[in-house]
Every structure is written in structure tokens, then in C-alpha cells.
């Protein structure tokens, strides 16, 4: 077993006025090294919570999360996280944002500069390196956030609905760019989304989750070769998988309410 990320019987509950709310109910999942996995599910299914556990931002009530076989005890630069709300530091330029993590690694200034430059170039923001986030469009902000994550060269990318707030065209462009870089550096990617098309297009495996309590409903393999192309989106095979995922997400059996 060479699972890069593994969730073992993870439970997350929150105390509520009347009893407890179960966000995740005994979830187990292995994500292989260099795998691209997407997680879809209705809101409240705990998909973001699951990812946050791998990121070390949320602690499990029971069970454990392993990265490289070691239990996660907190966040770290080996796991890059990309948030839906971009989370750029608005007082820093694009370049300074990208250098933020590199400074924490205490790299020499020259090396820092070089790596930031490369990451900014990779996401196509070279012309805006000295711009403040407020002057950027949503798509450019998210590119900057991606560059910031790439710059520290994490082995794992955890992405929480990163393209959710973007328009359809920008989203498709960023999807293709993401796959492009992934095929080159082969990081392990766990990508949360509520968009079924996006889930199928990106992943080699789609994890479908269900809500109340949050659990894994089905795991659907996507037997389409990489690189993925725009034609593939229109292929019957894509359509079939897409329907399967759609069905698993939106026609879920009524939840058996766990006591």
C-alpha cells in the first residue's frame, strides 16, 4: 500500500443544541501517490471537512488521517491548500504573495525570487507580478493563489472548490492548466467540487459523498486517458460516467439517520 493520503475511520461531530451533528461518519479513503481524485457531494456532506483534515486545519473527533503514513497533527508546507475564496493577502503584490511561503522556508533571497518568478510564469501572471490583488479578476486571483501553493513545491495539493466562484470559460481554462501542470509534476491532488462535469473531467477517481451523516456514497473510476481534451467532454464515455456520477450525487437514497 503506497497511499499518499489515507483517512482511517474518520469521524467528525459538532455539538448542537439538540444532540450532536455528525459531519463525517466513519469515513475511510486511500488516495494513491500521484493520483488526481475529486470529491463531489451535496452541501453538508462533509467534503470540505474531510479535506481540511488532510490539511491539518480540522481535527477529527475519532479516527486518523495519515499523509505518507504519518498522522497529520497540523498544517505544513508539504501540503498546499487552495481555498475557494482565494485567500490572498490583499496588502501584498502578486509576487510578495507567492513569496510568502518561500520566506517561511528561509530560502536565500535569490532562490526565493527565482522560484516565485517560475511559479508566477507557470500560471501566466508574469505581467501582473507587481499588481495588488484588488486589481485582479477572480480568475487571476485564483491563479495567484495556485502559484503561491506551487512555489513551495508541496507533494500534495488540496483544493477546496477552487474554481467554484469563477465564470464557466475561466473555469475550463484553469482546469486545463491544472491538468497540464499535474501531468508534468505528478503531485497528489485532492480536489473538492460540487460540479459533476469538473469532477469527471479532472479525476481518475471520483469520490461521491452523501450528507446527513457525511459519508462516502460511491467511488467511480474514470477510465479516460490523460491528457484530457475538450473533445473528450463530448464523448459518449464521458457522458456515461458523468451520468453515473450525477445519479450518485443527486438521486441519493434518503439518509438513514444515524443515532
Amino acid at each position: 500500500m503506497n497511499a499518499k493520503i489515507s483517512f482511517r475511520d474518520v469521524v467528525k461531530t459538532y455539538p448542537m443544541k439538540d444532540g450532536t451533528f455528525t459531519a463525517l461518519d466513519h469515513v475511510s479513503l486511500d488516495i494513491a501517490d500521484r493520483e488526481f481524485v475529486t470529491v463531489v457531494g451535496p452541501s453538508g456532506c462533509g467534503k470540505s471537512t474531510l479535506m481540511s483534515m488532510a490539511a491539518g486545519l480540522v481535527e477529527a473527533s475519532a479516527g486518523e488521517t495519515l499523509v505518507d503514513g504519518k498522522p497529520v497533527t497540523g498544517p505544513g508546507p508539504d501540503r498546499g491548500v487552495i481555498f475557494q475564496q482565494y485567500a490572498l493577502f490583499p496588502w501584498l503584490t502578486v509576487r510578495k504573495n507567492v513569496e510568502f511561503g518561500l520566506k517561511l522556508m528561509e530560502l536565500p533571497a535569490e532562490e526565493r525570487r527565482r522560484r516565485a518568478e517560475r511559479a508566477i510564469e507557470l500560471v501566466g501572471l508574469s505581467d501582473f507580478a507587481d499588481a495588488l490583488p484588488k486589481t485582479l479578476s477572480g480568475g487571476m486571483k485564483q491563479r495567484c493563489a495556485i502559484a503561491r501553493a506551487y512555489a513551495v513545491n508541496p507533494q500534495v495539493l488540496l483544493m477546496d472548490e477552487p474554481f467554484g466562484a469563477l465564470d464557466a470559460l475561466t473555469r475550463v481554462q484553469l482546469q486545463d492548466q491544472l491538468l497540464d501542470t499535474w501531468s508534468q509534476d505528478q503531485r497528489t491532488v485532492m480536489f473538492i467540487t460540487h460540479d459533476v462535469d469538473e469532477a469527471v473531467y479532472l479525476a481518475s477517481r471520483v469520490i461521491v459523498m452523501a450528507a446527513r451523516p457525511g459519508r462516502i456514497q460511491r467511488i467511480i473510476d474514470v477510465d479516460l486517458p490523460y491528457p484530457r481534451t475538450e473533445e473528450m467532454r463530448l464523448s459518449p464515455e464521458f457522458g456515461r460516467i458523468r451520468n453515473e456520477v450525477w445519479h450518485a450525487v443527486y438521486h441519493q437514497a434518503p439518509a438513514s439517520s444515524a443515532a
Partner: protein
Amino acid sequence: MTQLTALGKSSPAPVVRRGPKRSRRAVALNLIAVVIGLAVWTLLAGVGVQGLPGPVEVAGKAAELLSDGTLPLDALASLRRVLLGFLLGTLLAVPIGFLMGWYATARGLLEPYVQFFRTIPPLAIIPLAIVLMGIGEVPKVFVIFLASFLSSVVATFQGVVDVDRTLINAARVLGASDRTIFLKVVVPASTPFILVGMRVGLGSAWGTLVAAELIAAQEGLGFRMQQAQLYYDLSTIFVGLIAIGVLGLLMDRLLLLAERRLTDWQERR
């Protein structure tokens, strides 16, 4: 500070205007308003409102007080008190506000005092301050210090509490320690709040000052007005009022300028 210059007109160029640049139209309107105000004043003095001096008379008095050095000295004395009290108040307020925002323990310990003293107008402290600290500079500076401290501390505290959680998480996942998060995320993110608090603090410091000087002082704008009142010298009172207004406005503009410079990164709206 949004400027609505194209009111009631079809706006041909919906350019978003930022910074201190104002359209000529707005400036012209401001000037017209001032001229009308002066005219009304002259008229009121002219028709003989009991003892009211006209603008010319007040300007003459101002020139007199300027040339004999009274006005500059008074203004200087007042400014010194305000700046000293304001600086001390802000210097203490910022770290205390950070402590309260960052550590729940500090918040629990300090909040009752801050909230309680906030409900007492600083002027109400004056009698106590005079009894305890005499009638020298100390009680005046102390009251001003208190006024600016209370408004800045609440603003700073609010700024820290309101820092976007995702920004803190973004720093954490890049490997930032608590110390780095505080210095590199919390401090810059709360700067806009602090600066607004400082402006409010300066306003209340200035307001408190004049009242403090009315009670016991040997120099200062408030003292001069108090003296003028005894001699029924309305012109001097007017000069004092205008000086207070102009100085207050100048200081506010300076802080506003600093605010614009330091928080230019903010997305407005």
C-alpha cells in the same frame, strides 16, 4: 469617503475616482457655500444681532492676535497637549487592543474595564483628575490620553477579531508560526481598523482638550476663549472657535492621508 459629483446629471464617464483629487465642480460648490455663509454672517451682524461681530471684525482680531503672538502660542499649547495625550493613548491602545483580540484571557480580564470606561465621557473624569493630579498639565493630558485610548483600543480589538479566518488558514498551511501569523497577517489586516480608531480618537481628544482648558489653564485656545467670555470679547471667541475648527480639520486630513497611503490595498466596496 465616496464622492458623488455627478448627482442628478447624466454621467458620461463612469470613472471611479479615488484619492484626494476632486472635480472642479465640487470645489466650486464648496467655495460658493463658504461665500454664502460669510454673506449670511455679515448680514446677521449688519442687521444688528446683539453684539455679534462681523467677519471683517473677526479677521482684524485674528490678525491682531497673530501679530502679538497670542494665537500661535495658544495654538501651540493646545496642540502640544493634544498630541502628547493622543500619542500616549494610541501607543498604549494598539498593544492592548492586540492583546485583547488575540488572547481570550487578556480579553476576559480587560474588557470589563474598557467597556465600562467607554461609557463615561472623558470630561466627567476632569473633576477627579484635578483633585488627584492638581491643575497643571498632567490632568489635561491625562483626560486627552483617556479619550484617545478608549476609542483606539476598541477599534484595534475589533480589527483583530475581524481578521478573515481564511487568511490566517492560508498562512498556516504555508507553514507560518503563530508569531508570523500575528506579525504578517493580523497586524496588516487590522491596520485599517486601527487608523479609523485613531481618527476617531483624535477627534475626541481635540474635543476633550478645549473643555479641559476651559476649567484650569494659563494658556491655550480654550483658556483664551474663557478669558474673552469674561470681558465680553466676542471677536476673540470667534477667532478661537475658527482656530479650533481649522486645526482639527487639518489634523484629521493628515490622518486621512496617512490612512489612504497605508491601506491603499483595500478593495473598496
